[in-house]
């Protein structure tokens, strides 16, 4: 990967981040409701005090200057104060972020572990019985909404399962126990959220992997490899899969916005204390600074993963960087 490509790609991040901030600010500015609406209806606050407050916080400034003000504050890390949690928004989000990243990361891992072998096997024998079953299951997998799968898993594993295999359906941050027991409890309570997200992701990934492998498997260099007498296994693993996986990397990253949507739902169902459930509870509690902050973090994460995908893609396939 040339340094030039790296710099060019990094520069694209700036307009996307600016675009996202502009969009968020526009939505916020267009939204009805006044932060001083309460003061306006309060007869104990004289109008001149209200006007002085408005002037102090710059509410009567032109829109562009308010935007710049807001942007500078966001860049400085001054994200506001949560009315509900009584703490700074950035501290609150930083507390919750690791949980979300762990859940999303393990779910993606599970999706890849399931989808890769199934997709490759299905593509090596297209239209076989296995392929058809895998395809049908994949369709069922991404047609099942995450909130329904979550409830089904709770029904099966928390309510109707025998005692020894019951799983907790409420995620607890304060697990009682230390050492191995602590980790074991954490793994146990993560199983269901990760399964819900991972299987949903895996279902759509299977179809991508299958078509990517099908595109490659007909190429001449694969035939050459076969005619040299290399075993079928080795041809598939060493020659086909390595090439076919390059576009899959991009697809995994492009799926990220959908993964975050799924993460919000799963966190809400299983009460996982991540930023997804934080978003929902702040919306229900009218906690605007937190809502804005979490949305902004989600957008940043998507931009970041797109950047990673492009860089990995250029590293895997050097032709890309020379375009």
């Amino acid at each position, binding site marked *: 990967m040339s340094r030039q490509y790296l710099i060019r790609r990094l520069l694209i991040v700036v307009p996307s981040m600016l675009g996202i901030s502009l969009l968020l600010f526009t939505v916020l500015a267009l939204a009805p409701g006044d932060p001083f609406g309460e003061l306006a209806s309060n007869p104990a606050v004289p109008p001149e005090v209200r006007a002085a407050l408005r002037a102090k916080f710059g509410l009567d400034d032109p829109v562009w200057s308010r935007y710049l003000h807001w942007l500078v504050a966001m860049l400085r890390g001054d994200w506001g104060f949560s009315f509900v949690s009584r703490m700074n928004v950035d501290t609150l989000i930083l507390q919750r972020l690791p949980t979300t990243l762990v859940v999303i990361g393990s779910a993606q891992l599970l999706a890849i572990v399931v989808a890769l072998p199934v997709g490759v096997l299905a593509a090596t024998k297209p239209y076989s019985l296995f392929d058809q079953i895998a395809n049908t299951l994949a369709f069922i997998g991404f047609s099942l909404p995450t909130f*329904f799968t979550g409830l089904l898993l709770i029904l099966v594993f928390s309510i109707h399962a025998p005692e020894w295999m019951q799983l907790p359906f409420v995620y607890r941050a304060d697990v009682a126990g230390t050492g191995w027991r602590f980790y074991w409890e954490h793994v146990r309570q993560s199983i269901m959220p990760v399964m819900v997200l991972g299987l949903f992701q895996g279902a759509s990934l299977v179809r991508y992997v299958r078509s990517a492998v099908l595109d490659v498997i007909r190429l001449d260099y694969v035939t050459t490899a076969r005619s040299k007498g290399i075993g079928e296994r080795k041809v598939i693993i060493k020659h086909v899969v390595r090439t076919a996986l390059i576009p899959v990397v991009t697809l995994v990253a492009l799926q990220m916005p959908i993964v975050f*949507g799924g993460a919000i739902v799963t966190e809400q169902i299983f009460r996982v204390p991540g930023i997804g459930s934080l978003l929902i509870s702040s919306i229900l509690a009218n906690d605007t600074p937190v809502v804005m902050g979490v949305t902004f973090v989600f957008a940043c994460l998507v931009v970041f993963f797109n950047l990673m995908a492009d860089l990995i893609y250029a590293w895997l396939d050097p032709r890309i960087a020379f375009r």
Partner: protein
Amino acid sequence: MAASPAVVVPQRKAQRFSPGLEAWRRFRRHKLAMASAVVLLSIVAAIVFGPFVWRVPINEIDFAAKLQGPSWGHPLGTDDLGQDVLARLLYGGRVSLAVGLCAMLVACFVGVLIGSLAGMSRGSVDAVLMWLADFFLSLPALPLLLLIIYLFREALKNVLGPEGGVFVMIVLVIGGLRWMPVARLVRAQILSIREKEFVEAARALGASKLRQVVRHILPNALGPVIVAGTIDVAAAIIAESTLSFLGLGFPPDIPTWGRVLFDAKDYLDIAPHWALFSGAAIFLAVLTINFIGDGLRDALDPRRVL
């Protein structure tokens, strides 16, 4: 002309071919898509005509019969207020499917508009529009959807009433966040079709750009748009159900499928039928629409040999 009675040539009807018939022939070969079409049509029929046959009101409260499993009086059981789940699901299906269809129409309209603009104008307009599409593609849809609904719900409610306001907003926002794939498809199609001879002929005859697009290019670019639109309906149904499931969609007195599931989730241990039936309704609708989309993809792709 003297007809010879001895030789009667059996008049075989000339085989008729039209793009529609050909697509239908191909579609029928996709067994799962055909089965899905039958199931989806029966769901639609049940939703449209069901409330005229099953005349139980959706909001008749009967505490004596609360949280009951399926029985003859209530085929799908009752909820925590003793309301009939079947009646609520039939009514809610109308809202859920209407949201799906309308959001798809919005997405397709915006997508076709922007895609055609980008494809026909090339140059800087094209570049800006496609950058915009890429930008929207990289937005996290659900958080943004939640944010917009959080900020604008009250205002629209005051203008259009609680039901109308939420409906218009959900349709516009879901549709407005899903136009990008359609726009890219339409642009790609236009870029290849606009160089074909029949468009050149139209251009030579003095057809305006608008006429070239509407009369000559778009009808030939419709296949992929139909497929994308079909899948968009499923995605919009899921999006609406997700919002309702998070308690941020329609108000409680409008039992959309997601809303019923939201109400049911706290009674999972004592009344699982409630959640299972509403979830199954969403799942069945989405699954059949996805399969139909897959069948249409096979049927409408002229390069595919079937």
